[in-house]
């Protein structure tokens, strides 16, 4: 009888835990899509997904290694890993820590643990300084040994990797502001309020001298690099999450209503074209010489020509195909959310070439 009672209790608790956590996934446990980085040689693909950073052969999708060599309890990684010239692999983690692993041995070199919230985005490395944005609203500047050099606090979380022109750091914040900071010291050059939260990396256009950012109000703004003045502004129908992509003077951008747009960079504020797709677009489109590739939150992956005409569509049920696709040789890779598979590789006609299921 006692055994039966214990079993009943265990079952009740297991049931309650399962119900409350809804089996993990997108609800209870913070997750994202896999962060992808290709090594400079193009031989290794680094995939940050939850418990580890997996090294794959990008041609076959076969797993070769996993970072770190010894798993770190409580750490989960989704931001694209950063490979430094001095042989480090920088991994931003959801347990409020930034880790450095030895690229060769996969051993932990150092960890930065002063942040108060998650590292959602990858750090930026410029001239031996690491600029790490954190969801606590602070940009941390560290040396290559992980020691803090400076910090800059904004009003809300930082979910996007900063960008640079070599002398200044450009940062978007969920407080709705874009900041220009002096490299290394993080002294503020200027900041401008865009009116709504920003979660994507700013795009720098050296041709027009503008910095493009999109916000949750659906404004695509071109800011003057020197002053931060809004020099150009276009509107989209939905909220903007992903950054624009720039090719041959054309900006390509998706919104969370599922529209894909093309704008003449710095030119007319009316789109060159607008194509409705199915599902939220949360990444920048991948632009090749004759095509655009983008995935959506409805599990659709599209190939379009540069005039916005859909050429191919692939549908994967019950998943989200989010993030910015990555071109590796003739393959197009995109992160999958939900299910065991975390990455899918297409050829240019959207035939599946391989899928990646992590082996821990």
């Amino acid at each position, binding site marked *: *009888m006692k055994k039966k*009672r214990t079993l009943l*209790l265990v079952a009740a*608790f297991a049931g*309650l*835990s399962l*119900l*409350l956590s*809804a089996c993990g996934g*997108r*609800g*209870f446990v*913070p*997750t*994202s*899509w896999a962060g992808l980085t290709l090594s400079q040689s193009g031989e290794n693909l680094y995939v940050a997904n939850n418990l580890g950073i997996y090294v794959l052969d990008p041609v076959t999708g076969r797993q070769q290694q996993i970072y770190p060599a010894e798993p770190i309890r409580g750490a989960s990684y*989704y931001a694209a890993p950063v490979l430094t010239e001095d042989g480090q692999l920088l991994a931003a983690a*959801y347990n*409020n820590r930034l880790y450095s692993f030895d690229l060769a041995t996969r051993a932990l070199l150092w960890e930065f643990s002063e942040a*108060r*919230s*998650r590292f*959602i985005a990858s750090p930026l490395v410029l001239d031996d300084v690491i600029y790490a944005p954190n*969801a*606590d609203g602070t940009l941390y500047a560290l040396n290559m040994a992980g020691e803090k050099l400076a910090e800059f606090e904004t009003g*809300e*979380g930082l*979910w996007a990797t900063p960008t640079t022109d070599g002398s200044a750091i450009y940062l978007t914040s*969920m407080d709705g502001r874009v900041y220009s900071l002096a490299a290394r010291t993080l002294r503020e050059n200027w900041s401008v309020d865009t009116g*709504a*939260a920003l*979660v994507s990396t700013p795009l720098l256009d050296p041709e027009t001298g503008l910095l493009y950012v999109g*916000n*949750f*109000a*659906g404004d695509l703004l071109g800011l003057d690099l020197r002053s931060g003045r809004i020099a150009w502004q276009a509107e989209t129908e939905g*909220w903007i*999450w992903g950054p624009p992509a720039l090719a041959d003077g054309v900006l390509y951008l998706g919104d*969370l209503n599922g529209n894909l747009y093309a704008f003449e960079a710095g030119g007319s504020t009316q789109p060159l074209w607008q194509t409705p797709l199915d599902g*939220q677009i*949360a990444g920048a489109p991948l632009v090749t010489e004759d095509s655009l590739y983008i995935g959506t*939150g409805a599990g659709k992956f599209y190939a379009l020509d540069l005039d916005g005409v859909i050429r191919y569509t692939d549908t994967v049920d019950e998943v*989200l195909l*989010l993030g910015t696709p990555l071109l590796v040789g003739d393959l197009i890779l995109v992160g999958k*959310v939900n299910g065991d598979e975390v990455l899918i590789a297409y050829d240019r006609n959207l035939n599946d070439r391989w899928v990646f299921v992590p082996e821990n």
Partner: protein
Amino acid sequence: MDFIVIPFVNAIVFIYDLLGHNFGLAIIIFTVLVRLATQPFTKQQMDSTKKMQEMQSSKKWQDLQKKYKSDPQKLQQEQVKLYQEMGINPLGSCLPTLIQFPIIIGLYWAVTRALAASPTQLLTLINDLRLPDAAQLLPINNTFLWMDLSQPERLVLDFIPASLPVIGQGIPVLAVLVFITSYFQTKLMTPTGAGQNDQAAQMNKMMTIYMPLLMAWLSYAYSAGLALYFVASNLISIVQYGLMGKLNFSNLLPARTKK
């Protein structure tokens, strides 16, 4: 669950906006409102439980148990007759709970979803929001008192050395509060042992410890927003029962041993 969770998410974000972007207060107020709305079910459940208890401690019921001890089928038939005689619906205490259950789980999920601490969670929240000018409401301000509601809560006190195990990284105040309030809630709301057999009494005793422990562990490991919801929910339950005069303070006293 989306048919419950999505309206709840919008309601909690609406309250958050009304309260000047204080999500901690929004959780508390929304929990109070939902509990008030489900009050009739709670009362109905309590009344049915009380009737059932009275019946189970009656002599007639006890006699039936003894008489048909070896014939469960007959016992069941006689019990049904007794229910009818005394005008008791045996599902009367279960149905209100079943109706409330999805609402309470929905409330819990709405809090989790609105906190949106990662890209996939925020995309889901954006998808769910139907409020005008929702873009101006995000991100939700997760700060409440010393807490980041989207993170596991720890109160860091400067005089406690960081090298100390467990509390060195901060005291989990909310997890402790969740344990205490869950413990008192279970104790105060558990009926007296009258009419209960040994097995039921033993089960109640175990629940008094294990349930608060489970809730405290969830509060320790997951976001402070959920822990705040647990504390608010426990306290409101205690107040609700207190207002109906159903709190069982005798359960807090040490058990008397028979000599």
